[in-house]
């Protein structure tokens, strides 16, 4: 794999990762990232943060990373249910992205202590209030499906209706990272809710990025496959379209390389 020419990441037909047409304030779009525990999407999330702040995924393309001069925290907001602020700060500092250039909402620390026992609608509305109202901003939300396990009785439809869709309206582009490491054909009530949540995300998305380990098992020179497909939402409001593609990628020692499949 070392002799194979590595590729730049492109999601849209205007040769961009996050198209400039996306966060103009005229539309509210969604991109869904699916991953498994074997192929965590963390590297992709940091790449998207970098792209939003610097204009391109410089670290992925191994070119020198420009220093971010603007300090507009509203450009991008990161919220995670499984990582705390320190984790993102450390990772983004390595990409020369200081904490003053993005906003982080910690949904891990003390979330249970603060919210358990409260009515579901109240918890969801309080969560929503934490996000800035700016239709030109990008919001990255990591593993919102965790809410289905933390709030007793919460259904997929309720989560979409009271949290995901209002959140989409608050920003220009919402990027949801979700973990799908279970059988989509599960028969239990909980399994159905999880499947419905992911399916709902697919329908609302303009693009779906999926990270999967190789079907053949572990390989020393390939971490997994990275597939870009169009989602269920119409992108007629954009002059560009999602470029469907599949890469192989290698994630090693905090570096990621993409190769065409």
């Amino acid at each position, binding site marked *: 794999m070392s002799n194979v020419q590595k590729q730049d990441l492109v999601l849209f037909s205007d040769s961009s990762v996050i198209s400039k047409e996306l966060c103009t304030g005229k539309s509210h779009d969604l991109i869904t990232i699916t991953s498994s*525990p*074997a*192929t*965590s*999407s*963390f*590297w*992709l999330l940091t790449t998207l943060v970098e792209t939003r702040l610097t204009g391109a995924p410089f670290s992925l393309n191994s070119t020198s990373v420009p220093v971010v001069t603007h300090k507009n925290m509203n450009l991008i907001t990161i919220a995670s*249910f*499984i*990582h*705390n602020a*320190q*984790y993102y700060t450390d990772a983004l500092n390595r990409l020369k992205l200081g904490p003053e250039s993005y906003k982080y909402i910690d949904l*891990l*620390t*003390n*979330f*249970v*202590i603060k919210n*358990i*026992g409260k009515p579901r609608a109240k918890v969801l509305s309080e969560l929503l209030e934490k996000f800035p109202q700016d239709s030109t901003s990008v919001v990255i939300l990591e*593993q919102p499906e*965790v809410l*289905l*396990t*933390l*709030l*007793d*009785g919460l259904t997929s439809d309720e989560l979409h209706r009271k949290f995901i869709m209002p959140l989409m309206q608050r920003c220009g582009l919402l990027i949801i990272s979700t*973990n799908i*490491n*279970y*059988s989509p054909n*599960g028969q*239990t009530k*909980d*399994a159905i809710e*999880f499947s419905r949540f992911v399916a709902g995300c697919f329908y609302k998305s303009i693009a779906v990025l999926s*990270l999967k*380990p190789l079907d053949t*098992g*572990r390989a020393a020179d390939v*971490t*997994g496959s990275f597939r870009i497909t169009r989602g269920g939402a119409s992108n007629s409001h954009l002059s560009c379209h999602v470029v469907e593609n599949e890469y192989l990628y290698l*994630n*090693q020692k*905090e570096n*990621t390389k993409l190769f065409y499949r």
Partner: protein
Amino acid sequence: MSFRKRGEVINGANSGVRAVPGRTPVARPTIPTGRTPTVIGGRNPVVHSPSTLADRLDRVSIRNEGKKTDERESLDANHPGVKPSPATSHQTTSTGSFHLDKVLGHSGLPLGNSLLVEEQGTTDFGSILCKLFSSQGIVHNRIENSVTSGNTHLIVLSINQGFAKELPGVYKGSRKDIRKSKIAEEEAKVTVQNLTGKTNAARSNDLKIAWRYGLGNESSDKEGLGKPNLNDENNYSHQFDITTRLMPAPSASEITFISPLQPVQVVLNQVEQAIKKQSGKIIRIVVPSLLHPAMYPPSMFNLAKIMPILHGARSIVKNYGSRCILFASVSSDLLDELLLTQIENTFDSVINLEPFDQEMTQLLERAYKSQPNKIQHGLLHIMKLPIFSERGEMHVLKSSYAFKNGKRKFEIEEWGIPVDDIEDTEKDTPTHEHAGVEHKTDNTKVSVEF
């Protein structure tokens, strides 16, 4: 003799000043409360009014507020149970099993991370690992010459209060070594028998020449066998003998039991309070046999019941990431797929133990007939590794390792299917046909009976 009420301040309030006789104290501002400074040698002591002192202290406290919280969370730099990971330089601590430490890729479990041991089938190897992990913490805490009184605290999320008494003791060598150390201990005791030298007669004769070379001092060294020393690098990881018990059993100052069956907020608050109380110590949180039907009611098998506890525990471990680790074991056959994957999702690293079935065990017994110590007990699958998997690296390794649990160690080694020599030799022998006939007749018999 004068009688004063208890608590009354001597020379208090506005009374005179204590002074060296014959010297005149220098006038100073009066101090309304508190102890009056003593004048020695006629020098003027620097006196601050309480208000200014309090102000200064306040200012210091404000300035160092961030630093104070860091100090509360920071760890003693000389902690014998912590060393940097060779892979990522994160501070790591041992799990109590040298081989498991190695498999995790960091020579231990990095602080601020969690490990889940899943187990298939009805065996209970996971609880052995739990006990090793717990014992390791207690042994670290008991290391002599430690700067502070203790350096590690164990929090057990379980209703099994007997867990503390089940922890294995440190392996003290073979039977021969133990016998020798016992003899040395007996001889070192100050008893009439020892002083008269009756028992030591033979030994002292042997050492008549040896004392010149200091060989007699060996016994004092042997006394320390099994007792870890602060300067010894081996203190990072110990070897445990699962047939013995940790003596004395961990006390309340070393171990805190919290029932996971209480309301979630109570459980999490109790865990956090216990961590805050043990400032500067490594906190090892252990959840042995998570969701074991004997301990957990059926309602806990609901996602909305168990996940808040685990999510909260993850939050605490990450919040006190510089000195906190979490270890849990679970029987995977008892849980449905979704619940198991959601539990896995809250842990930073996951390993899966798959004990061999009877046929495989029989094959191994045949293959290692002359070397029974080599018989493995099952396969170890790696599902997630701490730090690496979170970054996005793919570290799923299935059927690459096998484990075997012995008296003194939980060994993990690379797995290879052994060659069954007996079957081959049987095939090669001239009695093959005869054996085949016998086999055939056996089969016929079975079918007729059926």
